[in-house]
């Protein structure tokens, strides 16, 4: 049957069809829906792990036990999982393993634009890159065969545009596949003596995979006009076909290792050959290193997402499509939702003039005007570790701000450092009882698993206590004045402290009956309430006004009003 599936749904389907029994992941756009779809198959045990390193290691364990398994993550998640990734290349697999990693060219929702392909070169792990959902399904199935035949994990490289595009797919049936557990210390115990013997085997495997790639049908030549040709892979293949329908194309389904003979053959057939790829010159570097003459990043950009026009413009500098545009129209940036508990924290921090070292989540939006109350964001957990470094070096009136899911991801070990090395740090854990930015996934603090089963919730205050932190406060962020008082007490303390801001995300809360309204008699039109950055507030005829349909009744804007003109009312 033909159905429309996104790239992420297709990877999940392919894993199911390949007989996968175990799946682990941590949510991150654009990869989240892979695990969310795996959860729906009763034959698969699927879970959210606290972070990507744990997810991949669990998958390695499943493989050792003889089961086919999949780990999925976004590009920066592979940084967290890089440690097991590099050595997993040495041990190889027992049950087949696919690691699906989604890059984000154009940074639609990421902190950087790194190119995952650099990791497969570092680890000598083979990688396949689908150009639509049908290939996402087929390549995932094929990856399990490659994995078990060549005793290696296989990476499926996705990008946002593949993960989140639905295309027509013909699905197949599930084949069960299982092995006995593998107990073989020389293969699985990577102490120096054994690892030293595995490394040459990895290199030998790489050579066999290179040979295999030469005859692999997913690496294919489409010879048409021989005056111009493109070597490409993934979604960029689609852009090339649209921009230059008459050109010859060498489409690479396997992007590592590369079929150098096939590439040479293509280049000999075609006069001018371009290597076109988003982000880093990965294919290009490999091809040029083999002494094959091609044109690449001399003409194509190294940043941003491509489309057919990017390719046309790179080759023909005079190409200008005819368009109508309206410059200067207002932007519509994402904002914290009306009633978002994070807003109370940022308003409190701003009023108290305390700096905040942030992290990854909805609350990163606290950096954007008009809130402008967050002062760093590097990666998950970094805010807490940076707080330790900054306060140890004498920086004052600075706190860490981290969400609950992010705290369990990597903030835990950072907090342990603060507790153990006794820095005068204050860590704010914004506990909204869910993973909001990626779409309400459960995490260890929620008391629920990915499959919707009840489990024992981990409370951040108990973790902090177990680490030996004595100053732990739990505050309702809707109570901004109380929050400021607690902040002042804790930042002036010289010992480690934790403030837990606890209130559930509005996405998992019933809309309250109480809303706020503006008393027009009292309002002086000073616009200070607008500085909380809430879309329920606007100016109407020189006075503030609150949209009762949007208002979530948090009352945080009232804190900013110098005339107490914002008052409680009924919807």
């Amino acid at each position, binding site marked *: 049957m033909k159905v429309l599936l996104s790239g992420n749904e297709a990877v999940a389907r392919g894993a199911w069809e390949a007989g996968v029994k175990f799946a682990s992941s941590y949510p991150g756009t654009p990869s989240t829906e892979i695990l969310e779809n795996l959860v729906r198959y009763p034959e698969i045990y699927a879970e959210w792990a606290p972070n990507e390193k744990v997810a991949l290691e669990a998958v390695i364990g499943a493989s050792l036990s003889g089961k086919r398994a999949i780990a999925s993550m976004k590009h920066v998640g592979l940084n967290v999982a890089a440690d097991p990734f590099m050595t997993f290349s040495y041990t190889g697999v027992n049950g087949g393993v696919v690691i699906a990693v989604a890059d984000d060219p154009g940074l639609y929702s990421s902190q950087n634009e790194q190119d995952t392909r650099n990791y497969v070169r570092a680890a000598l792990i083979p990688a396949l890159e689908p150009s639509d959902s049908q290939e996402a399904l087929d390549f995932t199935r094929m990856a399990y065969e490659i994995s078990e035949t060549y005793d290696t994990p296989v990476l499926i490289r996705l990008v946002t545009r593949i993960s989140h595009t639905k*295309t027509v797919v013909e699905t197949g049936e599930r084949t069960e596949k299982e092995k006995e557990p593998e107990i073989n210390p020389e293969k699985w115990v990577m102490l120096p003596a054994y690892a030293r013997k595995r490394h040459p085997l990895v290199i030998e495997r790489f050579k066999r995979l290179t040979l295999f790639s030469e005859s692999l049908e997913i690496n294919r030549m489409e010879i048409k006009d021989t005056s111009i040709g493109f070597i490409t892979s993934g979604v960029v293949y689609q852009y090339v076909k649209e921009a230059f329908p008459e050109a010859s194309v060498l489409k690479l389904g396997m992007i590592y290792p590369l079929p150098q003979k096939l590439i040479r053959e293509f280049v000999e057939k075609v006069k001018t050959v371009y290597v076109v790829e988003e982000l880093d010159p990965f294919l290009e570097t490999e091809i040029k290193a083999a002494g094959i003459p091609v044109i690449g990043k001399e003409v194509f950009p190294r940043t941003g997402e491509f489309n057919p026009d990017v390719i046309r413009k790179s080759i023909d500098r005079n190409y200008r499509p005819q368009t*109508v545009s309206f410059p200067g129209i207002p*932007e*519509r940036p*994402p904002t914290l939702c009306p009633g978002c508990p994070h807003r109370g924290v940022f308003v409190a921090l701003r009023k108290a003039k305390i700096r905040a070292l942030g992290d990854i989540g909805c609350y990163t939006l606290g950096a954007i005007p008009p809130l402008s109350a967050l002062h760093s964001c590097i990666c998950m957990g970094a805010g807490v570790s940076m707080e330790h470094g900054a306060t140890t070096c004498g920086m004052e009136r600075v706190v860490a701000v981290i969400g609950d899911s992010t705290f369990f991801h990597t903030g835990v070990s950072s907090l342990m450092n603060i507790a153990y090395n006794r820095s005068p740090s204050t860590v704010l854990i914004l506990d909204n009882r869910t993973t909001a930015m990626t779409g309400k996934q459960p995490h260890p603090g929620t008391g629920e698993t990915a499959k919707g089963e009840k489990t024992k919730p981990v409370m951040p205050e108990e973790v902090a206590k177990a680490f030996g932190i004595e100053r732990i406060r739990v505050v309702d962020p809707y109570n901004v004045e109380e929050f400021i008082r607690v902040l002042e007490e804790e930042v002036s303390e010289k010992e480690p402290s934790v403030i837990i801001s606890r209130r559930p995300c509005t996405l998992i809360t019933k809309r309250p009956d109480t809303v706020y309204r503006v008393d027009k008699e009292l309002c002086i039109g000073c616009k200070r309430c607008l500085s909380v950055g809430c879309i329920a507030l606007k*100016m109407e005829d020189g006075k503030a006004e609150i949209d009762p349909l949007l208002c979530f009744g948090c009352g945080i804007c009232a804190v900013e009003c110098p005339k107490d003109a914002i008052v409680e009312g009924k919807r």
Partner: protein
Amino acid sequence: MSRLDIVIAGVGGQGVLLASEIISNVALAAGYDVKKSEIHGMAQRGGSVFSFVRIAEKVYSPIIPAGGADFLLAFEELEALRYAPYLKPQARIIVNTQKISPITVLSGAASYPEDPVEMLKEHFTVYPVDAVSLAKEAGNAKAVNTVIVGMFSVFAGFERRLWKETMKRLLPPKILDVNLKAFELGVSAGERNEA
């Protein structure tokens, strides 16, 4: 029909993604190749949301190139202006006559354009529709998306039964009747425009 490229745009929460899901599935049922592409993530927090639907015998790029789209279905007036650069010169626009101020306007940093519909009419064929009123008439103000889908169905040319069958398959039973009614009101609005 040789090919049909559609941009669907609005504000988070307006049902842009369901509208593009219905249109894509109708095209698939009619035997076409379809690609439907959108960006999730940060856009969900009240930001601008858009979806590309491309329908043809064979579709390559999921992204519609600048100046390439035949249709824009805009759920909000400012968003109609924002996605205009994707349109062909002779493109048609269905626009819900609703203004939702973004935070940049609410906070006074920018001002909402005076009359987006008139600005668009200078360049394109524009079909304005008060989809909020029609959705309320159908029984739920949230059915703006199916009003617009209904209106678009008049111009798209797929068999009428495919739209209804697809909606029956995709929508939860609880909200199906309201949406079928909203779809019909959209069809009537479309037919008035076409006449």
